[in-house]
């Protein structure tokens, strides 16, 4: 026992106290974050100055904006020399920006309804708290939306839908046996139904018919949304298949997938759109004419599928080998282990990447303006800016386009971040 200390026993515990003023509250925060060092202080002042200059330059332009005028001349007259924006162009040309200039205005309710229903259809997929029965609506939605947007008799959509239902029923019945047999039977059954259904639908064009709107009359932001959504939905299954093929052991399958993926990823989207525009028609049988929008959709689907394949490949690689082994050792075959074990986990990991790629696709739909389709950017550069009424109103129009895309893309990426956080907490 050492003699170098006096023994000590505390009689009363010390209770908690508040820190001194400089260590808490607003003062502490300001000190640490804005003025912690000389360099930091300089940066703070520089940033404040930058923000101030931007606000001072931009505010009058916004505040003095004219919302009600018929031409750009009128805007300038009304402004009388002050700096201000001519927002009237947005007011006057809004329908054109959103729907294109050929979509009949009496039918605007149809794409509006389709968009709202899109959100309803996506809701059960994106948010897991909702009742599963809503998924039935999600399955019906593509056919409903097709009828709403393009018009025509409802029979086409209905028969297409039932074709898919029949395929699914056949698959379920035969999936006890071999996978290949089930697939073949369901494809054949669906094909038979679609041929009959197509014939019947062709007979009567007016049952529950909406006014037909041909694809070339679609335009504006609606076209961007349409192309983006369809391309993304179609490309996800294709991308997953490509990813699975790429990591397969069979050399031929693997090389087909590798060549496809690397080719598509190596060229810019604009060249693929050139293909859609001038070359793709050569590959279809003579005397068939395929809509430009369909050709563009095909190339965009291929484009997106290649990028999604790479994302899913990363997800598949992130799974430990033990999962494949465990699935094998309890006797699941390839299709079963993919369906129940591997793909659910891999896709969950890949979701942020897939959402990223999809947002990129939505932004890339603006490229169709270069091949003279009148999407949002095409409308602005084409009919609106070149019209004598609105010549030269760059900032307002491009700013509005940027704002529209910003709102949509930012919301989607915020959703993706939220989803990532949800999936993280899941793991616990």
């Amino acid at each position, binding site marked *: 026992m050492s003699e170098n200390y006096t023994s000590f026993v505390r009689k009363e515990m010390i209770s908690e106290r508040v820190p001194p003023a400089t260590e808490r509250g607003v003062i502490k925060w300001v000190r640490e974050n804005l003025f912690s060092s000389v360099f930091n202080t300089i940066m703070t002042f520089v940033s404040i100055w930058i923000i101030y200059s931007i606000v001072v330059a931009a505010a009058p332009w916004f505040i003095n904006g004219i919302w009600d005028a018929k031409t750009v001349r009128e805007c300038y007259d009304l402004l009388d020399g002050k700096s201000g924006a001519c927002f009237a162009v947005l007011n006057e040309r809004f329908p054109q920006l959103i729907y294109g200039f050929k979509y009949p205005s009496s039918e605007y309710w149809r794409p509006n309804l389709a968009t709202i229903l899109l959100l309803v259809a996506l809701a059960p997929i994106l948010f897991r708290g909702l009742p599963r029965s809503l998924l039935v609506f999600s399955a019906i939605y593509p056919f409903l939306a097709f009828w709403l947007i393009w018009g025509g008799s409802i029979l086409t959509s209905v028969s297409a839908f039932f074709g898919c239902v029949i395929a699914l029923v056949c698959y379920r019945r035969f999936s*006890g046996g071999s996978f290949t047999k089930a697939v073949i039977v369901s494809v054949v059954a669906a094909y038979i139904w679609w041929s009959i259904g197509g014939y019947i639908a062709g007979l009567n064009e007016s049952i529950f018919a909406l006014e037909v709107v041909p694809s070339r009359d679609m335009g504006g932001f609606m076209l961007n949304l349409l192309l983006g959504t369809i391309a993304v939905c179609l490309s996800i299954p294709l991308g997953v298949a490509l990813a699975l093929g790429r990591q397969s052991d069979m050399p031929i399958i693997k090389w087909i997938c590798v060549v496809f993926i690397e080719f598509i990823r190596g060229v810019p989207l604009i060249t693929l759109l050139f293909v859609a525009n001038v070359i793709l028609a050569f590959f279809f049988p003579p005397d068939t004419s395929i809509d430009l929008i369909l050709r563009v959709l095909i190339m965009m689907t291929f484009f997106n599928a290649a990028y999604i394949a790479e994302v899913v490949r990363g997800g598949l690689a992130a799974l*430990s080998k*033990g*999962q494949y*082994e*465990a*699935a*094998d*050792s*309890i*006797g*699941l*075959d390839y299709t*079963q282990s993919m369906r*129940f*074990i591997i793909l*659910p*986990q891999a896709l*969950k990991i890949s979701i942020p990447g897939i959402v990223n790629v999809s947002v990129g696709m939505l932004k890339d739909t603006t490229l169709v303006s270069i091949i003279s389709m009148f999407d949002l950017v095409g409308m602005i550069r084409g009919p609106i800016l070149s019209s004598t009424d609105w010549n030269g109103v760059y900032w307002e129009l491009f700013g509005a386009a940027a704002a529209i895309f910003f709102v949509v893309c930012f919301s989607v990426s915020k959703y993706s971040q939220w989803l990532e956080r949800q999936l993280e907490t899941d*793991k*616990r």
Partner: protein
Amino acid sequence: MAEKLKLEVSDEIAISIKSMNKWFGSFHVLRDIDLIVNRGERIVVCGPSGSGKSTLIRCINALEEHQSGQIIVDGTELTSDIKNIDRIRSEVGMCFQHFNLFPHLSILENCTLAPIWVRKIPKKEAEETAMHFLEKVKIPEQADKYPGQLSGGQQQRVAIARSLCMRPRIMLFDEPTSALDPEMIKEVLDTMIELAEDGMTMICVTHEMGFARQVANRVIFMDDGQIVEQNEPEQFFNNPQSDRTKLFLSQILGH
């Protein structure tokens, strides 16, 4: 130390391996393996790391492919015929060092997945079987939880229950306790002892020599891809014949 279990071993052959050889590329990982396992036998395989013990048992359920020799499991020969492989895999259960539970499925779903989709057992029956085995491994209350919410020992017991739900006739264990914290090893070993008492044919790769002494009726020592020595546990631990065996035992029994 627990009492040695006295258990019946039948004469029926469960696994028969003859002159089996395996190469990884040019590395000769398994050399001239000859092994007969009778039904009801509990075999412990031990050896230094890299000796091929895990590879051996992974060949038995075709997770690895052997290049020469013959493996017959439960009367079916392991060839490259997929039907044979599938049949063998449903009769042989395997437990891994890292459990490999399916993290996105609940415990109950982990256990019922294979019976429903491979043996085509109706869901209700599969769930009853699953609960029965979860009770056997003493964690029935965790049935609705997810693997990430369980401790390591609990996860490994679930992995055992998952394999048992397929009603295998042979169980393979690949270092089942090596990834566990010390305080959880006992619960897993107790489960394995109970399995042995029920008459399961078991091959276990492990370093747990206490378990070997208590349960095994044969201990096999492997080194450099070959079976160097096999004997019943008393003889093996007290009277090792080969120098390599003696060296190995001194290393692991020393502390």
